[in-house]
């Protein structure tokens, strides 16, 4: 396990290993997302208060959770880069930012679409919404900060520090609904009992979607990291060989 983890720290081995993981990961993701979304859209009973509109939850909740998970992951890899100077860790952290920004945007947009008919407004400055908007600004700020540096190493260090500072926002998002009186509803209690707020037929499809979007996130992250590896290692012989190999393949057409 440790060996495997260390190998992923080498750009070349990360590239060749993920080559083998990607097809598997893609199939699992397609199956999980397909099942979960179809189930949530058409096969779970409507909510007794919100009717069919609550089906937005099958997108909104996993997106909001993943947006925070992505931030936590970016911060961990940033710390890994700062402490051990692992280059791949910085490449993964860099790949996290645009994906995280787009996921946060979807979480906010679907929240608004849910809010219009349910709350009567698409936006309100309550703690949950505001702290999530700050996370979007952090992601965008981290992307902008990196592009402001000519040197890869200085940009990487600055982004790693900003990512770590922004971690303070994560517990604020998580506990905002408990600490303050918000219009946003509290955390859902999942339980197996029949009288629970969310019975199993509601949350089981949500689990499928949850792991499905996690798979999608890993695929998107791996694809972006691989591109970054190709760019930064472009003077290495193995990258030249890889490019030449592609040349031969396309040469037949």
């Amino acid at each position: 396990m440790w060996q495997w983890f260390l190998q992923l720290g080498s750009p070349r081995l990360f590239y060749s290993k993920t080559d083998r993981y990607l097809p598997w990961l893609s199939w699992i993701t397609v199956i999980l997302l397909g099942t979960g979304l179809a189930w949530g859209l058409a096969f779970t009973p409507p909510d007794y208060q919100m009717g069919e509109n609550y089906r937005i939850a099958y997108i909104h909740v996993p997106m909001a959770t993943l947006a925070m998970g992505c931030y936590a992951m970016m911060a961990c890899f940033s710390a890994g880069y700062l402490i051990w100077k692992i280059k791949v860790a910085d490449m993964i952290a860099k790949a996290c930012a645009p994906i995280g920004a787009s996921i946060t945007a979807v979480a906010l947009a679907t929240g608004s679409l849910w809010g219009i008919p349910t709350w009567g407004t698409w936006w309100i400055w309550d703690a949950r919404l505001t702290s999530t908007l700050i996370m979007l600004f952090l992601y965008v700020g981290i992307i902008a900060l990196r592009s402001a540096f000519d040197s890869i190493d200085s940009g990487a260090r600055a982004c790693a520090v900003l990512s770590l500072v922004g971690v303070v926002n994560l517990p604020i998002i998580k506990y905002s609904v408990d600490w303050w009186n918000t219009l946003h509803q509290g955390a859902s209690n999942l339980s197996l009992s029949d009288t629970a707020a969310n019975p199993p037929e509601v949350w089981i499809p949500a689990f499928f979607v949850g792991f499905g979007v996690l798979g999608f996130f890993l695929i998107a992250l791996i694809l972006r990291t691989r591109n970054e590896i190709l760019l930064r290692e472009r003077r290495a012989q193995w990258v030249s060989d890889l490019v030449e190999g592609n040349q031969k393949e396309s040469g037949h057409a």
Partner: protein
Amino acid sequence: MPEFQFQSLAEFFAMGGYAKYVWSSYGVFALMIAYNLIQPVLAKRRIIKAQKARIQRNSA
């Protein structure tokens, strides 16, 4: 087994009057997924093209 919750396909698309909100949510989600998968594939093509050009320049 879970059952189909709508009487007809038309009712399924109508989403009990919430069609606008439900389908735009799923639409935004689908666009985000598509962007995050297509962007890196196109970027990889650009990188490989630039690399090939560099290798050819060096060998010429």
